[in-house]
């Protein structure tokens, strides 16, 4: 090392708007994640197993149009769920925990960036990354099925494509709050990753055990929740066993309080607690 005999030079460029800076965080997360071997490997494997085979089979086999039931069942498949949980665990594990462990959270919060902006950037980065699995391939599948259909009702098929867009977004949005919350309560990304996976896994086991006594317990299963919320998004009838109020309440509990927890954790870190 050693210093070059150069002086300090000022910078006179124009600054970007404050409320757009969270996009820098989101952009950085996407770039960093797609360079990660584990994430990339699971994304490719999952895309091939979950999406590419159905895309080929369903678009090659004779079909009259794209139906909401077909897409709902495709997105409610167990393999889709497993790969999604694994990818969420991989993506979210270090999003907050690493910033807390390395103290780089101090640098974020000393910038012209509110805690809300920081959180929004992390959430958006995770959303975009997870949507590489939950949104883009299902959209490709639905479009492929639509363009190869034998029937002429394209309007109905494109409605399902639009619903698939919403369902893909929702699939990512549903899991990320828990991933971020677990990442915010530990400094170790391994714990956060395993914790996120185990959280959903344990919920499924608990739901399976208690469903023996009452079918209402099935709503505790994230797989069932995802299936039922997709049913709503695709405008299909919910099963008679499903209590809509409880469904709404559990979805709320798994999405809003975890994000509030992350917000509070970051606020506390900001003042050095």
């Amino acid at each position, binding site marked *: 090392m050693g210093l070059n005999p150069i*002086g*300090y030079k000022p910078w006179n460029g124009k600054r970007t708007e404050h409320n757009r800076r969270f996009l820098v965080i989101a952009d950085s997360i996407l770039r960093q994640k797609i360079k990660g071997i584990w994430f990339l490997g699971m994304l490719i494997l999952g895309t091939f197993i979950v999406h590419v085979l159905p895309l080929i089979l369903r678009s090659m086999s004779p079909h009259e149009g794209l139906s909401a039931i077909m897409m709902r069942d495709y997105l409610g498949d167990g393999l889709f769920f497993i790969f999604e949980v694994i990818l969420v665990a991989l993506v979210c594990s270090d999003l907050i925990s690493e910033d807390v462990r390395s103290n780089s959270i101090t640098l974020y919060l000393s910038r012209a960036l509110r805690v809300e902006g920081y959180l929004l950037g992390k959430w958006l980065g995770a959303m975009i990354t997870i949507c590489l699995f939950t949104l883009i391939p299902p959209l490709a599948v639905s479009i492929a099925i639509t363009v190869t259909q034998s029937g002429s009702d394209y309007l109905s098929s494109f409605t399902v494509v639009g619903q698939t867009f919403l369902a893909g977004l929702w699939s990512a949005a549903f899991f990320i709050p828990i991933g971020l919350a677990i990442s915010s309560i530990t400094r170790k990304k391994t714990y956060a990753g395993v914790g996120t996976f185990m959280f959903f896994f344990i919920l499924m086991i608990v739901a399976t055990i208690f469903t023996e006594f009452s079918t209402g317990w099935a709503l505790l299963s994230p797989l069932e929740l995802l299936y039922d919320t997709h049913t709503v998004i695709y405008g299909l009838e919910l099963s008679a066993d499903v209590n809509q109020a409880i469904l709404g309440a559990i979805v709320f509990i798994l999405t809003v309080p975890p994000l509030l927890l992350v917000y509070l954790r970051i606020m506390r870190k900001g003042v050095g607690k």
Partner: protein
Amino acid sequence: MASDVIVRFDNILALDNFSVSIPRGVVGLLGPNGAGKSTFIKTILGLVEPVSGDIDIVGLDPRKDVMSIRDRVGYMPEHDCLVDSMSGLEMVTYFGRLSGMTKEDSIPRSHEVLDFVGLGEERYRPTASYSTGMKQRVKLAQAIVHDPSILFLDEPTNGMDPLGREEMLELIGKIAASDKSILVSSHILQDMEKVCQYVIIIDNGRSVAQGTMASLLDQDMTKRRMTVRGSPKSLQTFSEQIHRDFEETSISEEFGQMNIVFINDGSFAMILDMAKGHDVQVRSYVPDRLTLEDVFIRSMKRDA
């Protein structure tokens, strides 16, 4: 400028009617651990809400214009804060963009500031592999990448070797020369003495002393350093009388020579007479300038 700022964490009074006026140039913020230095910096950055009091940073109030203030501020934290997975260049670019620079601006600017802080090809390596000195340089680079007008440097020479420390102080001097306000917090008082033009001493959340470095160091013009020689017995009786008659700050003896630092606002003739009476020779008698350490210790004692 801060006036009568009170910051409270539950039952702990972190800043107690804290009032300071910070001029341009390099300003030292001194104080023991837990004195309130970091709380003051966090209050300016809007991370901590004061209970009462006013803060004015280049005409802006952190409670109302926190984002505008943060755009004008660069912060180098004391502890490690680097993103391990990024290289030095990526990290400086990233935080430049978070400070409002476009990607097109932040990449060349990051190279420029990394050149300035003296980080060469290492900038392409992940920061996790950096030495302490390199980390300090990257921390400084990310703080100045967006050209802030105010810079907070928390222990900038922490963990650096003597050469690295000298270079860091030189960098601070260079940055200050471009009309910036730099607030440096450090425990290494020799470093502060070299680089600061103004000093604020803080203890228990209050400002216990502040002023220009020159005015603080020259505040005690009656302090004298005297070297005397003589037999051990003569030296002992002489030093006992000095101890009785004057406020003595330090005394040391080595190879029959005694160094005494004491306060004397009277004449030198009286000292000479006293030395003659005890059969000791006065070898030197010079005004003794206070060090920043003396000022710091005195301020702490006065406050206690």
